[in-house]
């Protein structure tokens, strides 16, 4: 089984838009996770959401990789764009849509998926 860190890296590298949140898109457990999801949705992003709550190691490994201390964290094509504040600011300025257009094309599909990591026993 691959390590949590390897799985996180794989998701970031392969998902067009990956967002690490508390809870799920159906039931976000934090207002900031909801704000990031809503901004991405409004920008027409294909969202792949990963819940960090099932295991504290997910957040530890994620922040070690991204050098970003807080949740949510939004990645577009493997690049960290920021948390809820930056994602909202970029939506308001039009930069988020422009970034998605540039990275994924304007004809992208607007979807929401949840990705579950396979957690190795501690």
């Amino acid at each position, binding site marked *: 089984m691959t390590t949590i860190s390897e799985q996180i890296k794989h998701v970031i590298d392969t998902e067009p838009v990956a967002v690490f949140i508390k809870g799920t898109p159906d039931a976000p457990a934090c207002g900031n996770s909801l704000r990031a999801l809503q901004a991405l949705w409004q920008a027409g992003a294909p969202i792949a959401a990963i819940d960090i709550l099932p295991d504290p190691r997910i957040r530890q490994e994620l922040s070690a990789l991204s050098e970003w201390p807080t949740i949510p964290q939004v990645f577009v094509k493997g690049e960290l764009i*920021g948390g809820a504040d930056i994602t909202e600011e970029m939506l308001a300025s039009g930069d988020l849509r422009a970034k998605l257009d540039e990275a994924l094309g304007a004809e992208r599909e607007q979807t929401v998926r949840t990705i579950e990591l396979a957690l190795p026993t501690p």
Partner: protein
Amino acid sequence: MATASIRALLEQAFPGGEIGVDDRTGGGDHFQVTVVSSAFDGLSLIEQHKLVNAALAAPLADGTIHELRIRTKGTA
């Protein structure tokens, strides 16, 4: 008070900057910080936020800050 120590950390990291710290819920752990500083001139938003996160690394790591909202602006 957490608000005062967060303000002190930001003032230290951004000398001469315009600093705002708001305890959003009154509970002393959900904060909105605003920083206007020439240190942000020419930087992308994510680079600006990374500087703020770095300035507040200690209270973020030890749980003093449970939730942090950041607003940054350069002076250029």
